[in-house]
């Protein structure tokens, strides 16, 4: 498995293929469509992050000291965003996740197409992932 920064760099390279917002959008939709659905048993309220116009369910588990994230959303676009986050964050140690700066989000130029209010949705997801990591860190410590 590639390091976190390397994974981010790969994503940025992928996105460099697309100049236009509609191309980026379609690519994210494709990622969203490919993300495996979360089984209904995990779609519980305590796993729900309520956004403005869509909801996200985020599930985390630990295996070998690494955190595995799985997630779902009623929005395919949001699922695509999640897919990117999972690509970078899942399978990492709690320490890595807590320290993650996720510079790729700015570098793929998504923010410029989303008002701060929508970008906040992404921020909540990241925050939730980090909270899980902090939780697991305490459990394992």
């Amino acid at each position, binding site marked *: 498995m590639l390091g976190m920064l390397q994974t981010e760099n790969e994503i940025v390279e992928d996105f460099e293929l697309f100049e*236009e*917002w*509609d191309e980026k*959008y*379609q690519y994210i*939709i494709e990622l969203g*469509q490919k993300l495996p659905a979360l089984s209904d048993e995990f779609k519980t309220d305590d796993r729900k992050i309520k956004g*403005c*116009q*869509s909801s996200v369910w985020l599930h985390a588990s630990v295996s070998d000291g690494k955190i595995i994230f799985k997630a779902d959303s*009623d*929005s*395919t*676009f949001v699922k695509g965003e999640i897919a990117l986050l999972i690509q970078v964050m899942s399978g990492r140690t709690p320490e890595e996740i807590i320290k993650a700066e996720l510079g790729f989000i700015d570098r793929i130029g998504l923010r410029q*197409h989303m008002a701060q209010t929508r970008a906040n949705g992404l921020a909540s997801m990241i925050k939730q992932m980090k909270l899980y990591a902090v939780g697991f860190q305490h459990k394992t410590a």
Partner: protein
Amino acid sequence: MSTTANTTQAFDVVSIRRDFPVLNEQPYGKRLVYFDNAATSQKPTAVIQALVDYYSRYNANVHRGVHYLSQRASDAFDAVRGKVKEFIHAANEREIIFVRGTTEGINLVASTYGRKNVMAGDEVLVSAMEHHSNIVPWQMLCEEKGATLKVIPMNDKGELILDNIEQFLNEKTKIVSITHTSNSLGTINPVKEIIKHAHAKGIPVMVDGAQAVAHGSVDVQDIDCDFFAFSAHKMLGPTGIGGLYGKLHLLEDMPPYQGGGEMISSVSFDRTTYNEVPYKFEAGTPNIADVIALGAAIDYWNNLDREAAAKYEQELLNYCTEKLSVINGLRIIGTASNKASVISFVLENINAMDAGMYLDTKAIAVRTGQHCTEPVMTRFCIPGTIRASFMFYNTKEEIDFFVEQVEKAISLLNP
């Protein structure tokens, strides 16, 4: 540009469009298609220029000023009250109160007339299709007073069920507040009829005119409402200003709203006397520039062939409705027989925001979500809709492109 549709002859939309500078914008290098008019309308150059003129030529605080700028500003400001009066056909310009917008207008009535007249055990009546701004102020009032909010239901087409309206109008009902036109369904309600029923029992009626003012003419004397609120920003005017109409005898009986400059006639620490209507309800330095720009918006309406514009908007509505109706997996929400140029719809298995974002990548501006009418969404068991709303500066060509892109969105987003 597509030539599949010819715009109506009667209405010269090409030259109208030149009045709206924003229509030249090109998000992502693509021609803007602005179909989010129910959220806020675009502004003609004349309105923007009114702001520039005011701020660069005669900006001054109004009233009480003896100097030239203040006098010019005061005259320009005062003249708009008369323009609003004509625009909504009020009887007297003292019946016009300047407020921030519809929301503040409704809050003003709830917290003055409402607080004075609604008591424990009383009822306030609204409808199932109200905007949050015409629900929450009344809920807050009812909670404060121990009163109950009653709701006129609607049918599956998004029309109010008025068969047993008498049941809702009883001796406990202290005020009715109802939207003229629904922002999420497009439904135009028979407010005149509802008001007749309410008045027969001596119950005053407030009309939420936010959507109504943007499409054709409003006549508060004809419908005989007791209060009427609207926002300038939905009818070609600036943000931050709107009007509240109230029948004079009601306004005169109402306690003041906010306290401060302008709304008093004399102040001492022992005793303060309030100014007369409408000033009693206008505390503080008014939003002078935006009032003047609202006047310019009304001038624009007055120079427009409003009847032709309204007819043209109905054509756009019908044209788009027909085209959307044949799309598989698309369901229009709100199919009342009397509708304003607002189309809400859902796409089977497709999240509304995803579709809205797709359209955005093509520079088409629609709104998605609940449109501040969560109870309407609950009623139709949907999380939200995609809403396209038209103004007279939109075209059938834009609709052609829009419908084409909706189809593309469906094929892209279908799971």
